[in-house]
């Protein structure tokens, strides 16, 4: 059996770890709240944009982003986190992304976040572009990335663009980014005037739509990462609590055993002297 002092040392270590976990949980909950707010802040814009696209694509206006082609080259955009200690957040995402990539031929990846970038680089995936580390997402970064993707799609370098990320709810999803699928549920107000004309509007609209979709996906992924970390850290501190209870029990037992041992010694010695 371990000595009393060893057990005491162990208890102290576990308690320290528990404190770190608690601190990380607190920090992550604050970050979670902030990142959820950022996701919500983009909603009015995205919804309004979607509304216009619905009406426009119901008409005859066309744009390269809306045209589906025979798929020869695909690119998969994967969004992970920069850091670990978030439970299965990164592992789940990388597993699903690898599966998506695995069932396609002629495929490249664009990786956002350090975890997936490292994982894909290690496995010799064809990584076309990466944002790593991603840090705090800036609209400008992802607007530029969306423009880059859109341009390559329009020039026929890629025939299909997929997006793999985690939603705020925590589910890993695969979405088609390009060609843009017109949202359902069209609401038409008779004849709409387009100033200057439908094609010019689409030309301006679709790149912006792409930018916001990519940016919102990144923001959702960040919020999901914080949520996953909050859950992981609260589980970890619960486990630490359990471990402390168990160790305290062991400690008390071993202390009692030591006392009993000493008492028997004393009693034994006393009766020997008599």
């Amino acid at each position, binding site marked *: 059996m371990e000595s009393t002092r060893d057990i005491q040392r162990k208890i102290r270590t576990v308690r320290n770890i528990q404190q770190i976990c608690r601190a990380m949980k607190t920090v992550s909950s604050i970050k979670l709240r902030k990142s959820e707010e950022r996701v919500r802040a983009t909603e009015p814009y995205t919804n309004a944009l979607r509304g216009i696209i619905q009406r426009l694509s119901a008409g005859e206006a066309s744009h390269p982003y809306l045209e589906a082609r025979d798929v020869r080259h695909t690119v998969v955009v994967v969004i992970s986190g920069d850091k670990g200690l978030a439970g299965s957040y990164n592992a789940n995402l990388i597993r699903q992304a690898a599966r998506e990539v695995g069932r396609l031929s002629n495929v490249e990846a664009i990786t956002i976040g350090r975890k997936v970038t490292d994982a894909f680089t290690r496995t010799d995936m064809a990584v076309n572009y990466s944002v790593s580390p991603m840090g705090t997402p800036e609209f400008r970064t992802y607007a530029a990335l969306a423009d880059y993707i859109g341009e390559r799609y329009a020039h026929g370098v890629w025939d299909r663009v997929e997006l793999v990320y985690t939603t705020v709810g925590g589910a890993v999803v695969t979405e088609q980014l390009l060609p843009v699928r017109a949202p359902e549920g069209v609401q038409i107000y008779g004849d709409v*005037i387009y100033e200057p004309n439908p094609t010019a509007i689409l030309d301006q609209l679709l790149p912006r739509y792409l930018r916001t979709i990519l940016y919102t996906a990144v923001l959702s992924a960040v919020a999901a990462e914080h949520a996953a970390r909050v859950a992981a850290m609260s589980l970890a501190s619960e486990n630490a609590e359990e471990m402390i209870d168990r160790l305290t029990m062991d400690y008390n037992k071993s202390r009692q055993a030591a006392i009993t041992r000493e008492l028997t010694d004393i009693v034994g010695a006393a009766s020997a002297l008599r």
Partner: protein
Amino acid sequence: MAFPFEVEVVAVDHKVFLGQAVSLVAPAVDGYVGVLRGHAPLVAALATGILTITPAEKRPVIEVAVSGGFMDVTPDRVTILADTAELAEEIDLERARQARVRAEQRLLAGASDIDITRAQAALLRAINRIRAAEQPRM
């Protein structure tokens, strides 16, 4: 007698304005467009300019420096999706002036085509913000 309609101004990551208005004037690419309640459905691309909203309540007009984006008009509602949108009263004049100087310098230095286009756009935005901020309120 003026009839109010709902106006919402949103930028990519925040809501700039939401309220009732009796009229608004927006900088479309082909020139300023005025909107009243009951306007025919219209989708217009926006240029860099000043958006003026006359609110329904007796309050001073609201001016917003916008650049790029869209205006979606339905008979009882106008949604403006701007690439950037700043209320005139919130513009930091000093920063806008600095931005103008920077853009001018970049134009004078003369670089590649892309840089020139970008600097021109930046200059236009800076001038627009300064104009919005300096305009006297009615």
